[in-house]
């Protein structure tokens, strides 16, 4: 019943989507705009139909309807309810269904908000979103059909991948990632719409999509941080980033989207980089599809890669079609995409934005090269290779420290051009921050040139960005006699875009400091100890109190209880453990983390004697790692400030 209803919804949605896609050009080319509401209705209907399918799947999962292929694959009667619900995105078919659902939701929201706008831009954007929906509907009916029937109906299933049901972040990271990934379809659709409707000259598409791009970027930022956190909390290796293809897949569109957020400002203020911005938007969308291809096709092996099937070819074909069609459109519109402004002086904010774009794009190409190289090598030479972490680290560190430095220079410089006196007044004071952080780094024991540079430039950028707030607040305080709190609120409210951006900068600086410190000063120790014995790392001592085991509904757990010692006194306990899921040959490690302001004490149970007479414990001291998670929150908060609806102060326009 559920199976037929949900499956048929997708089938009907395919027809509805095709109808909507065809209606738009017919209505616009023949001048029958009264047909457009039908196209918009198709968008809403598609949202309704995919919702029926997705909710039907959740219903089937919760009621353990093992006659449905996907439920038989990931469901289990012993899995807790929350993890049953979120196994909607726990394997290939369900995640494609979830993707299609999020996309149909975005499309409906875009039409709902913009459908009354005159002109051809919005209808073409809607048709573009329907085209992407069409692709996903085909996947759901073909290579990723979640509603295949199973017979005979099994009594129970294996449950979701143990790694995916071991931590609550699995309820958070994937939806955020999808909201970010799929959200990038909206600016893409508007860019295509602008080119098809000939409205690229007005830049209106960028104004209309600003909030969509910012929200998608905010979701993507949050998703990347949540993914790092998950890796840290579940995999038990004490790290959070390994340049794994699936991590790179989420990072690539983030880099181009970040570049776009900056270069869009250059276009708005100075009328430059039109062609470049279109390419960034199209590129970002393509990278999200490429990322889905990498993680979902099974072409790279990881926890994200579910099966090997034909789905990869569908993705490659879709990527090729989108790339060729977009390139053709961009080329066809190149006359309309001329810059109306030009660079006046190298000492200007637009120069810094240009450099920012250059380095972010170089970063993207570096990561892309390292990620795709193994695929290319295997396809061409038939050798199996992987690109080691040293490649990514060596290539990205110079880029990262340069970007940190630019983050301090950009906000300080004015548009157009800066005089020598201005340059001095703006660029010299942050050197105090740079010197301070450099000294802290040296005193803390950093000797590696890149970590020292990272600390120095993080200090520079932090000082420069905070100073912008200070200058603005002081001006309001003196001019209007406002209290400091009011001054801050009104300052930010008056230019949410700008100060939201500076807040995001501060978040990125916190993340950078966390990464620099944890990779420079990390200390670890591994030892086999008996109950009563201790293990120490950089001044922290842990005593093994006991080994224990218990049985839970869906798994068995074996753990160690360790006491955190302060001299002879016990300050607390930590309980790293291993979860044994029946379907998995290897246990899932569950490290214990004790966070402080300056860092985490991270303890993992590596191995133990079956009778519990000893345990091999790995203790890591991870400086500033909590700053990464907090910094991620600050980045998202910055995006929220910039997205927040305009109040009375936001009408300020800067002369261009």
């Amino acid at each position, binding site marked *: 019943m559920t199976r037929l209803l949900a499956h048929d919804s997708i089938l009907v949605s395919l027809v509805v989507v095709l109808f909507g896609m065809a209606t738009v050009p017919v209505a616009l080319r023949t001048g029958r705009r009264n047909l457009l509401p039908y196209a918009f209705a198709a968008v809403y209907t598609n949202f309704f139909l995919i919702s029926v399918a997705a909710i039907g799947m959740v219903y089937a999962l919760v009621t353990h309807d093992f006659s449905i292929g996907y439920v038989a694959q990931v469901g289990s009667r012993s899995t807790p309810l929350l993890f049953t619900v979120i196994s909607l995105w726990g394997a290939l078919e369900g995640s494609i269904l979830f993707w299609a659902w999020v996309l149909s939701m975005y499309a409906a929201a875009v039409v709902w908000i913009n459908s009354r706008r005159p002109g051809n831009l919005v209808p073409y954007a809607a048709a573009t979103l329907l085209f992407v929906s069409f692709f996903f509907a085909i996947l759901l009916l073909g290579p990723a059909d979640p509603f295949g029937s199973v017979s005979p109906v099994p009594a129970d299933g*294996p449950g979701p991948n143990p790694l995916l049901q071991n931590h609550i972040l699995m309820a958070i990271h994937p939806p955020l990632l999808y909201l970010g990934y799929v959200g990038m379809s909206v600016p893409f659709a508007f860019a295509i719409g602008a080119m098809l409707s000939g409205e690229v000259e007005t830049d209106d598409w960028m104004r209309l999509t600003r909030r969509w791009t910012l929200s998608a970027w905010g979701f993507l930022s949050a998703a990347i941080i949540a993914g790092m956190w998950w890796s840290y909390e579940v995999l038990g290796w004490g790290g959070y980033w390994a340049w794994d293809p699936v991590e790179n897949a989420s990072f690539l569109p983030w880099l181009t989207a970040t570049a776009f957020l900056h270069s869009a400002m250059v276009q708005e203020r100075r009328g430059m980089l039109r062609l470049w911005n279109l390419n960034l938007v199209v590129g970002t969308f393509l990278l999200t599809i490429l990322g889905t291809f990498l993680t979902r096709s099974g072409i790279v092996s990881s926890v994200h890669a579910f*099966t090997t099937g034909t789905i990869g070819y569908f993705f490659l074909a879709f990527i090729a079609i989108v790339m060729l069609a977009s390139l053709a459109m961009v080329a066809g519109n190149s006359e309309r995409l001329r810059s109306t*402004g*030009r660079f*006046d*002086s190298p000492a200007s904010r637009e120069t810094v934005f240009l450099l920012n774009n*250059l380095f972010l794009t*170089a970063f993207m*190409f*570096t990561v892309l*090269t*390292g990620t795709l*190289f193994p695929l290319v*090598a295997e396809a061409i030479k038939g*050798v*199996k*290779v*992987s*690109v*080691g972490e*040293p*490649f990514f680290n*060596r*290539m990205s560190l110079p880029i990262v420290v340069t970007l940190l430095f630019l983050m301090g220079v950009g906000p300080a410089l004015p548009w*157009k*051009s800066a005089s020598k006196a201005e340059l001095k007044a703006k660029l010299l004071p942050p050197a105090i921050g740079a010197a301070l952080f450099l000294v802290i780094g040296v005193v803390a024991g950093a000797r590696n040139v890149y970590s020292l540079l990272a600390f120095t430039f993080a200090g520079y950028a932090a000082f420069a960005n905070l100073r912008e707030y200070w200058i603005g607040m002081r001006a309001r305080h003196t001019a209007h006699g406002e209290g400091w709190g009011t001054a801050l609120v009104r300052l930010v409210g008056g230019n949410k875009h700008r100060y939201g951006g500076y807040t995001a900068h501060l978040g990125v600086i916190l993340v950078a400091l966390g990464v620099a410190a944890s990779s420079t000063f990390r200390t670890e120790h*591994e*030892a*086999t100890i008996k109950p009563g014995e201790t293990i120490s790392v950089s001044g922290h001592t842990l005593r093994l109190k006991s*080994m*224990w*085991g*218990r*049985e839970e*509904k869906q798994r*068995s757990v*074996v753990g160690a209880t360790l006491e955190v010692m302060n001299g002879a006194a016990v300050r607390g306990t930590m309980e790293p453990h*291993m979860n*044994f899921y*029946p*379907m*998995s*040959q*290897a*246990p899932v490690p569950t490290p214990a983390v004790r966070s402080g302001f300056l860092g985490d004490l991270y303890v993992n149970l*590596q*191995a*133990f*004697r*079956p*009778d*519990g007479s*000893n345990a*091999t414990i*790995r203790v890591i001291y991870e400086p500033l790692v909590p700053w990464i998670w907090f910094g991620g929150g600050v980045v998202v908060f910055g995006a929220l400030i910039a997205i927040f609806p305009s109040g009375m102060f936001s009408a300020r326009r800067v002369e261009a």
Partner: protein
Amino acid sequence: MTETKSPKSKRRPWVIGGVVVVLGVFVYLLYGGLDKNVVFFLTPQELLAKGTAGYDVPVRLGGQVKAGTVKWDDKTLRLTFQVTDGKSEVAVQSSGAPPQMFRDGMGVVVEGRFGRDHVFNSTGLMVKHSNEYRAPKAGEKPQEMYKTLIKGSGS
């Protein structure tokens, strides 16, 4: 819009030249970086077939744990075993605890370097999970293996 003194046409070649140089350096760095950091994925037979070219380069070695070769000293944290592909074997030495439930015949990928002493020094050890569900054999269930720890909770 302020008028500027240097016209666009004069600056163009400088800009294009700059872009070409930057791109060139970038591609050169990428190439150089890749050249040194590509890690080959090899089976024991393929590794041994490389002869001296197989020494001291980063390699990922894949195969099965050869039955009866696992030795683990929990005092020194020294782990040794042999990886086999059914045709050849390579002795592997690693430090750190083996994954819990590490057993004979299990698929593994070890990352590290093959030394001139014909011992593979591993810096990373990954267990390959087969995707298919396999019911645990008698005595392999954690409840049975760790029965002194997990007692009497009965289900």
